[in-house]
């Protein structure tokens, strides 16, 4: 009721909100992150186009770590369990998040998947996002870092075409470099494109097939670990 004149007309009020529309997702992501940090686990949000080689990167990572670190993975997949099955075969405990028609993972999907997944003892949790260079960039999952797999066959200007994704990346893995001799792709052109969308460009060239360049990726992962607890404290961490 309009109080000013008592006319009985409804009153229009403007409510100032100024809040993120995805505030709900950010709260859940913060909750996930808290759990990960508390357990000393490094969570990596691995993104990239369909076919960029995300699963192959993780298979190669498992081979290279050779049991020295405990790895786990949740794989976002529209319709199948294929990626998680491949990861399990490679020795990485893995579960699928079937997203149906959803083009990305959100923090709630990751949270739900972890309820039934033994993630607590892991050193690294890889969250293999849905193959897509657009939507996954928008959703925080609680990860410590965003890694984007970009294969050499995708074109030199890919970063310029998908600036939102590459701006969010902490690291870009240039995959399938064993194919370079057969292509007209110039790695310098990819690096230049990246420098125009990613303020701290960091790119490792690698091949999951030959194992080339994997050591930089492993070193980067090791550098991301929380400082190891002194021996006397280890027993109290469980």
């Amino acid at each position, binding site marked *: *009721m309009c109080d000013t004149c008592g006319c009985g007309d*409804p*009153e*229009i*009020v*403007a*409510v*100032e*909100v*100024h*809040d*993120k*529309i*995805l*505030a*709900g*997702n950010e709260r859940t992501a913060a909750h996930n992150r808290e759990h990960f940090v508390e357990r000393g686990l490094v969570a990596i949000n691995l993104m990239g186009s369909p076919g960029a080689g995300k699963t192959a990167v993780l298979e190669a990572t498992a081979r290279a770590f050779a049991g020295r670190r405990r790895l786990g993975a949740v794989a976002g997949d529209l319709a199948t369990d294929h990626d998680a099955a491949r990861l399990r075969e490679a020795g990485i405990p893995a579960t699928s998040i079937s997203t149906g028609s*959803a*083009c*990305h993972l*959100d923090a709630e999907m990751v949270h739900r998947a972890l309820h039934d997944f033994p993630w607590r003892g892991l050193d690294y949790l890889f969250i293999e996002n849905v193959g897509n260079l*657009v*939507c996954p*960039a*928008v*959703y925080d999952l609680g990860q410590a870092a965003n890694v984007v797999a970009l294969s050499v066959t995708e074109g030199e200007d890919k970063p310029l075409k998908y*600036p*939102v*994704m590459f*701006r969010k990346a902490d690291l870009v893995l240039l995959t399938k470099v064993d194919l370079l001799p057969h292509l007209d792709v110039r790695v310098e052109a990819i690096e*230049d494109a990246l*420098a*125009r*969308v*990613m*303020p*701290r460009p960091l790119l490792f060239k690698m091949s999951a097939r030959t194992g080339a360049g994997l050591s930089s990726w492993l070193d980067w992962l090791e550098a991301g670990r929380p400082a190891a607890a002194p021996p006397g404290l280890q027993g109290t961490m469980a």
Partner: protein
Amino acid sequence: MHEYSIVQALVDRVEREARARKATAVHRLSVRIGELAGVEAELLASAYDICRAGSLCAGAELAIESVPARWACPGCGREVPAGEVLRCPVCRSPARLVSGDEIILDRIEMEVA
């Protein structure tokens, strides 16, 4: 296309705010979308047209303000034009995004009986 999920979160939020104030209808929503937010204004508008049906937003106009991406040097504040290498032309520091990644609900105009 994630615009649907963003609109769903938007309509839910607006309904919560409107109910808390015992509003009978919502007239207008004002949102701000950054150029580098990863959200297409047109897709957002068409997703909104579908999602608002049957909600308190059914008759509410969606006003979308687009915010251009602006990069600047965190040290000296010098602007780095979009499309250039994202480093300060003077001190070479990595540029910082000053604006352009917003996905913000600014204002709800609602009818209170």
